[in-house]
């Protein structure tokens, strides 16, 4: 057995927790347990093996790789796998691991970079240091002690400021937030199609609109009406089927995946780390905290083969791009992003230099704050939306700005929107196309009776008695289905091509439908 000493330690720790000698489980209490075991319980053979390992960085790396790949998947505690990153970050603080250069990345965190939070220091007007690296990791809850959903490390905060972001994430996974996410994606999110397919579908929707316009305001198509209408309906049905079925599949997958990640999160405790020893006042870190909790939850839930396109895109983007993003904004339990003070925070993000995107609440003055930041902070121009950002021109610097580029400022009003923005799923083109498709569909649905009359007309109505017999009124009663779909042409030697529609008044009074040409004597 490789690294027998570590297994000895782990089993000593687990047995101690089972017997009650140790209060906490072997993972939550690993730091104290190791300290006790290494200094007071380890056998000389164990100590010698550890010393041998500690002597060379190559062997240290080998051990770390073994711990991550071999040990963590096999060392179950109450059915849960221990988090290798958590174990490494805890051990990295203790002898002899505190001298291992290979563990230096774990000495100040978990080695997972999350989304930065912009938290102003006392009296700060927006300095680079106010953009604070934040990271989160989810570990199995310890049933031996009372737990909270989120544990702050490196800072202190009121419990509500930690639990609210978690509840917002829970809502995003299985509650109202999930509906908001799916709706926002449906209305303006990229579809899982290749580019050519997207262009083709967009073109097809434009063709539908063009046909509608032609039929509404164009010249009378005459005999081409039925083929044109058939083409329009077939095309529309095809597009609705494609878009609808794709949306349904993606939504169903996201629905299922959200439930799976939520189930994992329910068994986890999130450790949220933000170095600096701050005591947080105010809730403006709620949005970055929530995004980091979501990131931690996605890491804790091992991906499956059918985890769904939408969540896969979101999770991949969060893991890859989170270090380049900073965020500020309060959050409530259903994921709504609440307004905060913006100007100094945008200034801080500019001065930080490494951040390329900033998420802020959609609030009055967000664009103005971004512009003021640009003119006062760095002399570089940018606007609140990435899509409308003009070319950047690094010119005169008003402050001792360290960054060359301005981070792009993105506004959001809900956690779901923030997630879609980071994942790059928000698309203005798709929003326009959804609008176009919605309007076209609304017109076609409103015109359903007429379309039916064109494509599947009822048999022509028959004239029934009585009918007019005087020269002062010319009318006929009709019998049959859907009389209003028809014009009545009353032809005689005196009039030509006199078309009239059914009269509603006669139908309302209980009589048969009637078509009438009202006549007025002009000469006696």
């Amino acid at each position, binding site marked *: 057995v490789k690294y027998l000493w570590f297994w000895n330690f782990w089993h000593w720790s687990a047995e*101690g927790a089972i*017997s*009650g*000698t*140790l*209060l*906490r489980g072997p993972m939550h*209490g690993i*730091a*104290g*347990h*190791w*300290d*006790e075991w290494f200094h*007071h319980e380890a056998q000389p053979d164990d100590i010698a093996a550890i010393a041998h390992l500690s002597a060379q960085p190559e062997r240290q790396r080998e051990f770390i790789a073994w711990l991550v790949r071999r040990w963590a998947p096999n060392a179950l505690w109450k059915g849960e796998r221990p988090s290798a990153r958590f174990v490494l970050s805890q051990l990295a*603080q*203790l*002898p002899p691991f*505190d001298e291992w250069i290979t563990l230096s990345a774990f000495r100040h965190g978990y080695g997972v970079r999350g989304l930065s939070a912009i938290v102003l220091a006392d009296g700060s007007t927006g300095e680079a240091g106010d953009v604070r690296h934040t990271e989160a990791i989810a570990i199995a*809850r310890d*049933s*031996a*002690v*009372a*737990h909270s959903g989120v544990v702050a490390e490196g800072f*202190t905060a009121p419990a509500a400021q930690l639990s609210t972001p978690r509840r917002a994430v829970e809502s995003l996974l299985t509650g109202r937030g999930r509906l908001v996410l799916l709706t926002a994606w449906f209305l303006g999110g990229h579809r899982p199609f290749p580019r050519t397919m997207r262009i083709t579908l967009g073109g097809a929707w434009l063709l539908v609109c063009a046909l509608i316009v032609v039929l509404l305001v164009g010249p009378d198509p005459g005999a081409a009406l039925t083929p044109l209408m058939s083409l329009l309906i077939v095309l529309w049905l095809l597009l609705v089927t494609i878009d609808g079925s794709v949306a349904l599949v993606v939504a169903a997958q996201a629905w299922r995946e959200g439930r799976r990640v939520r189930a994992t999160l329910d068994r986890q405790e999130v450790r949220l780390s933000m170095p600096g020893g701050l005591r947080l006042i105010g809730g403006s870190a709620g949005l970055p905290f929530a995004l980091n909790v979501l990131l931690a939850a996605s890491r804790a839930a091992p991906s499956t083969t059918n985890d769904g396109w939408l969540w896969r895109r979101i999770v991949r983007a969060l893991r890859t791009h989170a270090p380049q993003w900073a965020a500020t904004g309060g959050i409530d339990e259903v994921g709504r992003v609440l307004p905060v003070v913006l100007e100094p925070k945008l200034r801080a993000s500019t001065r930080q230099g490494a951040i390329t995107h900033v998420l802020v609440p959609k609030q009055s003055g967000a664009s103005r704050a971004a512009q003021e930041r640009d003119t006062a902070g760095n002399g570089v121009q940018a606007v609140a939306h990435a899509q409308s950002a003009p070319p950047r021109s690094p010119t005169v610097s008003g402050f001792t700005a360290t960054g060359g580029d301005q981070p792009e400022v993105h506004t959001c009003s809900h956690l779901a929107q923030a997630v879609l923005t980071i994942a790059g799923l928000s698309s203005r083109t798709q929003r326009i196309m959804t609008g176009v498709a919605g309007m076209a569909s609304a017109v076609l649905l409103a015109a359903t009776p007429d379309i039916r009359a064109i494509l599947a007309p009822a048999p022509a109505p028959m004239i029934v008695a009585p009918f007019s017999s005087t020269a002062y009124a010319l009318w006929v009663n009709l019998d049959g289905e859907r009389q209003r779909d028809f014009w009545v042409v009353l032809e005689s030697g005196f009039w030509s091509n006199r078309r009239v529609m059914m009269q509603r008044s006669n139908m309302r009074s209980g009589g048969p439908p009637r078509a009438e040409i009202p006549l007025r004597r002009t000469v006696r």
Partner: protein
Amino acid sequence: MYRDASVETLLRWRSDRAELEAPPPPRAATLIASLRPWWEREPMQFQVWVTKLQRMPVALGYAMSAVERGRGDGRVPAILSAELEVETYVQMRYVSVRQGRLLVRFALDVDGVPPFHALDTTFIDEGGVSGLFVAIAAWSASGEYRIDAALPAGLASTWENLKATDHLPFRLILQPRDSRAATRSSPEGMP
């Protein structure tokens, strides 16, 4: 003092000077008093702290769904007497009695109070009648305090099966080591 004085003369001279400057030897009564535990020497202070400790609740209500029923949460009432006096709880994370020695690790988390290098830890029985013994709790890198102390003869057998998850039959008075070093000279683990 002559330049040609021998080393022996110099030593005798220095010894005489030292005897003259030395404080008078303590009296036998003082020596006996210094061997008594601090709570016997400062009974009023001890009683005040004991009264406060007895007011602090320890019973579990099992309102927290995550705590397994029947397992204690390791909380023990404690008074930290540093610059400020704080009534708090320590969490006993490791309790083991082996070969007459008590091995304990506990966490002390008091807002705004940095960790101490070492704490004089006075164990008091639940009834608060008297102190049981004093041990030094040393700060460890894992963020906990560790005690390894010999138990008084009577306790070793009583506490033989004590575990961190049991109801712990003691309360603690914690004093930063430096603040009491001058007033007590009890050896580690002994009253």
